[in-house]
């Protein structure tokens, strides 16, 4: 299907000062073909094939600092003479700071369901839990006074498995899956799924390729779209082509995307609107990986009940469609664009 947005283009840069880039980088960005994507998902979600991640992100940093150094300027430390109004905002800053780390871990720390961490203020410690639905914070305890609770907390940390720390076992634990990161480029964790193999519930084994689209976010689906190839040749021709794997933590209560796409495709076939099939990809496989009956999600569901929205990891295997950018003439492009909107309307009406 046709994609209407480029993953790396930054239209907002039109209305704001552009970031400081190396001349070579600017050139690379303009030359990189805006290879399109296909709407592999619910029509509201568009993906792009452009995975033009620069190899060094430090060049885009604002404000610019010494690129050869990993050390940031020392953060401001509170002086003991500061008034209480300043102290009251410290807690908010701490919450935001911890949330920003969790955001990076859920976005760039491999395929993760959740993050467990802690914040320490003088003699107090509070526990933090982040997943794609909720941010849970415990009330603080004085760990000097209440040493039995503190030790119980450490007991909890000590017995956690990689899965309970939040790593999705669908792919290998990061450190095992690749050589040590020492000396490797910055892009390594952006292509962390590349080369990994996943086994589907129908027995087929897929080797994952480059990332097409990756959502950077804390609360939300965290959609990840990667290219894939089936490892063993099969009788089914559709599986032997280039494939797309879409992973997203969708709310459990939501209708699965493969049902929506298949309904639209069936409706189109019945009505003779075969042009729709050029936009909506053939869904080869769909499965839901539900961890809500495992720890710690099970405990959260028990504790929070309706206040917690359980999510499942939805995996779709789709056929890869032709990028919209390969359409050369204005008429073809206009027709394709119109088709995208018509498809959107069709799916909306069928819901």
């Amino acid at each position, binding site marked *: 299907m046709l994609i209407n947005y480029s993953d790396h283009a930054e239209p907002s840069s039109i209305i704001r000062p552009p970031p400081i880039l190396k001349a070579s980088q600017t050139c690379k960005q303009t030359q990189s073909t805006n290879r399109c994507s296909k709407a592999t998902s619910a029509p509201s979600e568009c993906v792009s094939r452009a995975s033009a991640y620069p190899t060094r992100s430090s060049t885009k940093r604002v404000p610019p600092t010494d690129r050869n150094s990993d050390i940031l300027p020392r953060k401001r430390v*509170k002086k003991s003479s500061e008034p209480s109004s300043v102290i009251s905002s410290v807690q908010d800053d701490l919450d935001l700071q911890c949330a*920003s*780390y969790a955001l990076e871990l859920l976005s760039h720390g491999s395929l993760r369901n959740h993050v467990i961490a802690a914040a320490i203020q003088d003699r107090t410690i509070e526990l933090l839990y982040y997943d794609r639905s909720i941010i849970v914070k415990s009330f603080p*305890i004085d760990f000097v*006074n209440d040493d*039995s609770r503190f030790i119980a907390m450490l007991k*909890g940390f000590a017995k956690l498995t990689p899965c309970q720390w939040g790593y999705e076992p669908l792919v290998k634990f990061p450190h095992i899956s690749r050589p040590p990161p020492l000396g490797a480029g910055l892009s390594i964790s952006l292509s962390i799924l590349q080369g990994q193999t996943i086994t589907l519930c129908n027995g087929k084994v897929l080797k994952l390729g480059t990332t097409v689209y990756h959502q950077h976010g804390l609360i939300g689906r965290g959609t990840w779209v990667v290219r894939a190839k089936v490892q063993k040749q099969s009788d089914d021709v559709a599986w032997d082509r280039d494939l797309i794997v879409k992973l997203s933590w969708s709310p459990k209560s939501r209708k699965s995307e493969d049902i929506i796409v298949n309904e639209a495709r069936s409706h189109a076939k019945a009505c003779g609107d075969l042009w729709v099939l050029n936009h909506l990809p053939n869904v080869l496989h769909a499965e839901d990986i539900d961890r809500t009956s495992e720890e710690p999600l099970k405990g959260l569901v028990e504790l929070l009940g309706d206040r917690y929205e359980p999510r499942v990891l939805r995996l779709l295997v789709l056929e890869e469609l032709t990028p919209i950018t390969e359409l050369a003439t204005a008429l073809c492009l206009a027709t394709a664009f119109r088709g995208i909107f018509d498809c959107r309307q069709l799916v909306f009406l069928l819901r």
Partner: protein
Amino acid sequence: MMRWIWLWQAILPVLLAQWQIFKSRTVSRKLEIARSISFCVNRHQQRVLAARTFTMSPVFEPSALPSTPSRVVNNSTRTSSFQDTPWSKGSGSHSGFRNRHTQDDYKPYLKEDLRCSKASIAFDEFLKHILRVSPEWRLQEKSSIEKIVNSKRYQDMLQCYTSQIHHETERYHPFTELVNHAMEQLRGQDEFVVSFCRNDPIIVKGSYAQRKPDSTGVENDVVNEGERGGVDNLSKEGPVGNAFFWTDVISFLEFKVKLFILSAEKTLPASSMLCCCFLLLYANQLLRPCRA
């Protein structure tokens, strides 16, 4: 007669619009109506000019043409990107993260996530439901807890943590040592080994955002890898030259300092303090006759 009709055609909308301005509450609505009045007046002027063309040459008056309405000013604290979903304000909608990734850029998005999706629970509930440590465990393992807490290494690290500091960074290593020591005692034979170590001031690699958690929890093999050389080796400057990647980071600890010197002693709970006060008062009462 025609003049009167034209005059009423011009005046009537103006009067109606002025009444609407008076009734409307928001400033932006008032401005919109005011603009429409000027447009009505301009249309009237154009008609007059058109009528004059029969008798005289047309005169071009730029002021008589309708103008493009001015852009509505967005008072939102953040500017939305072209690719942002209009009603979504959380971190997942921040599509410009590759160029705008400082803490200030993320603040409005993360604030929204925290505002909408934050829950606070008791420490015991966290232990029970998320870390799966039951309240009974503390009673059952009381002796082993006391053994860990009373060990010399634990007490030394606690003393080191609570002693006077000049900078927040001086607290990182004593705390991580304390945590690692206790976790080592508590861990089973084949359990997954996570060690906490100092990371600040080294930026964690693998993302556009340049963040540096104070302390990171990583797999034991990762912290000993290459030049990192273990937790103690990182205590002064973090993993200089061998920065961790986000894929290495399992967990993190973030520190904040309010007091630069702490007491390592256990303080009595409020109820115990109250009991002590009553006992002292009672003792004073008993001793009063003796003093006399």
